[in-house]
């Protein structure tokens, strides 16, 4: 234990996180400088946006560089495993998977892939925020540091292999979001959403940390590998470990909004500023599922199979059915997407329940599809929303296809992707997640999930029908269409094109995601 614990070379593996945190510090300084004169309010917004965007792009590039570095490591490992004149032998995918680990944090293909996605989400959300602040006359450039801090937590969450660092990362993800939800102090809905999210989020964190303390009491360690080892080698089944893990799972389920713990979602999603909702739907879901995947695939496989598989399946089934049934008659687009988010969490949890080593791949692809569709849909909502309402309702959308044909088409494509129509990325994700569960032998759950996605088609099609086929009711409110801001157009194009392109030719994405396997069954 005498060598230095952390070297500079090791720190460089955490590059994307460091870049984001450094950008936050720069942002805080530039914000102070820009605010020296009140007349520079607009400037502070613009510099905030620029610096945040620049930092996210640098982090994105750094993540690509890390991916490359891991590939170099992998080639070296392969050369070691297969000497030129040695006998041929077979190795598992995990054996060749390159990893840098500090014990509590680990950087592998999975973590780097999630970092890449988080950077992408961050860039698109920054695009969303710039016009949103201008249109709603909010001079709050300090939201950019908060956004970036939350994203740094998401990256750390995908790297955590230890209950302690997972907990700290979850807190780094959530704390900025509580503040961001209450961004507009003039809006009561914002304040309400912020308070509800904070209270229930704190409750969920309490569950998590209590469970973690019980796990520590049972195992004497908080590392996932140690938990798995203990579960395999301890002779008597440890009920305190099971209760601890169940509480940890409940804490994660709170953050994911699986069904008994979903009560906060509709109000928070509807009340929060639309770009923040987009960030929650795309980013938080991605990061917390990454953490749940690591916990389930690295710590659970050696445990009592029927116990954890049964409980995750139950949560998944409940989430799908409750989310879908409550979404059926929603009139508000944001509330609809909130309930559909609960249902989507259920579909993804089906993949979690299968617990195979390939589950990480399929869930990541599903999450990419969901993040793209969600980001695009929320962008269009914040473009179409009337002043001061920050939401659109079904009866306002009638005949939208005639007045704004491009936006209507984009919205329709994104809704179809969420419903899982073929030729969209949503279909690829659903197919992969469900086929994983089928291979794991969860036949009943897969049939239930497919039936549920048939139900979900109803409410997505309801919005498409309203835009394309139903005439406007006399006296109904009409949307005032403004010129679409440039960054909204950019976000819309990126999300729609990627949804279709990756839906038609998903091979490259699948090939990348296949490197991201975790231990699993």
């Amino acid at each position, binding site marked *: 234990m005498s060598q230095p614990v952390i070297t500079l070379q090791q720190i460089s593996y955490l590059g994307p996180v460091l870049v984001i*945190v450094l950008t*936050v510090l720069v942002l*805080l300084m530039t914000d102070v400088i820009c605010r020296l004169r009140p007349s520079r309010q607009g400037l502070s917004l613009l510099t905030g946006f620029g610096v945040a965007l620049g930092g996210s792009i640098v982090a994105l590039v750094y993540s690509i560089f890390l991916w490359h570095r891991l590939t170099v490591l992998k080639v070296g490992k392969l050369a070691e495993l297969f000497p030129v004149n040695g006998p041929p032998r077979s190795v598992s995918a995990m054996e060749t998977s390159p990893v840098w680990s500090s014990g*509590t944090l680990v950087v592998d293909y999975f973590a780097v892939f999630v970092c890449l996605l988080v950077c992408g989400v961050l860039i698109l959300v920054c695009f969303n925020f710039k016009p949103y602040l201008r249109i709603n006359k909010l001079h709050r450039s300090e939201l950019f540091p908060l956004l970036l801090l939350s994203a740094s*937590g998401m990256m750390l969450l995908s790297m955590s292999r230890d209950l302690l660092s997972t907990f*700290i990362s979850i807190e*780094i993800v959530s*704390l900025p979001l509580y503040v961001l939800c209450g961004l507009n102090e003039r809006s009561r809905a914002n304040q309400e959403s912020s308070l509800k999210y904070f209270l229930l989020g704190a409750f969920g964190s309490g569950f998590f940390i209590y469970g973690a303390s019980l796990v520590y009491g049972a*195992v004497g360690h908080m590392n996932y590998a140690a938990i798995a080892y203990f579960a395999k080698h301890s002779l008597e089944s440890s009920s305190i470990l099971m209760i601890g893990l169940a509480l940890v799972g409940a804490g994660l389920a709170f953050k994911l909004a699986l069904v008994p713990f979903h009560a906060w979602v509709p109000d928070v999603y509807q009340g929060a500023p639309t770009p923040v909702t987009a960030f929650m739907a795309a980013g938080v879901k991605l990061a917390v599922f990454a953490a749940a995947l690591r916990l389930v695939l690295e710590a659970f496989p050696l445990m009592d199979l029927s116990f954890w598989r049964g409980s995750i399946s139950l949560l998944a089934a409940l989430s799908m059915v409750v989310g879908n049934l409550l979404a059926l008659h929603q009139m508000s687009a944001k509330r609809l997407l909130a309930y559909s988010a609960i249902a989507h969490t259920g579909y993804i949890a089906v993949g979690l329940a299968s617990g195979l080593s390939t589950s990480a791949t399929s869930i990541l692809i599903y999450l990419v599809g969901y993040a793209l569709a969600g980001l695009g849909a929320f962008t269009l909502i914040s473009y179409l929303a009337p002043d001061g309402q920050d939401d659109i309702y079904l009866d306002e959308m009638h005949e939208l296809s005639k007045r704004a044909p491009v936006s209507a088409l984009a919205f329709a494509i994104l809704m179809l992707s969420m419903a899982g129509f073929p030729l969209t990325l949503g279909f690829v994700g659903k197919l992969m997640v469900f086929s994983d569960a089928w291979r794991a032998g969860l036949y009943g759950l897969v049939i239930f999930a497919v039936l549920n996605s048939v139900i979900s088609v109803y409410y997505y099609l309801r919005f498409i029908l309203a835009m394309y086929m139903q005439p406007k009711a006399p006296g109904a409110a009409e949307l005032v269409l403004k010129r679409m801001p440039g960054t909204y157009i950019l976000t819309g194009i990126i999300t729609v094109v990627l949804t279709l392109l990756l839906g038609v030719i998903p091979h490259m994405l699948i090939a990348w995601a296949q490197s991201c396997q975790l231990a699993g069954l």
Partner: protein
Amino acid sequence: MATPVVIFFSYLLVAGLLVGVSSLILLAIARFRPYRRFLATLAVLGFVAFVWGMCALTQPGYRLLVCYFWLFTAAVVGGGVGCVTMRNVFHAALMLILSLLGVAGYFILVNAEFLAMVQVIIYIGGIMVLFLFGIMVSQNIIGTQLKQNTPQSPWAAICAGVLFMVMFFTGLFMTLKPTLTVTPDVLGNNTGSVGWSLMATYALPFEVASVLLLMAMLGAIILVRKD
């Protein structure tokens, strides 16, 4: 073994426990509010009888330890019950301090003196003082005394009861083995080993926690800032 003395103290122990617990439960019910002085006295008497019985039944060398353990337990449980039943929010916060002090006592009993000090300094010295300060300031601002009023208390009591029973039966049928090899060095140098694990095993989470603190500071400033 069952000498008359042992039998007497066993009965004393059980009777004290029953009297203490039932009067604590009655204390938590609103209808028995007028008798709360009497019930509190009864609870204390029951507790004293219970601890007396406990101490008399343990081996001589461990009597002091057992006595302190139950003293701290009384502080934790009594403080917890008081915290959720007191009408006056200020008094409830004071009861929470009592409960946290009891936990600090537990830490001392298991040789974790560093944790005990941290518990006292951070929870009681920092958080709870801030809590009391907040209560006093907000009472001054809104001009009325804050009352603790929880209409959902029956449901909360049922949930807490169920969770307690689950944990109780788990604890009853559980064999806790020391999973870490406890060396005299660890026991003797508790503060040192906490420092070692913070700076070596958990160095990265420790650094990451500083990002969390930065975030908390930033968020607090943004929440109270006016345009």
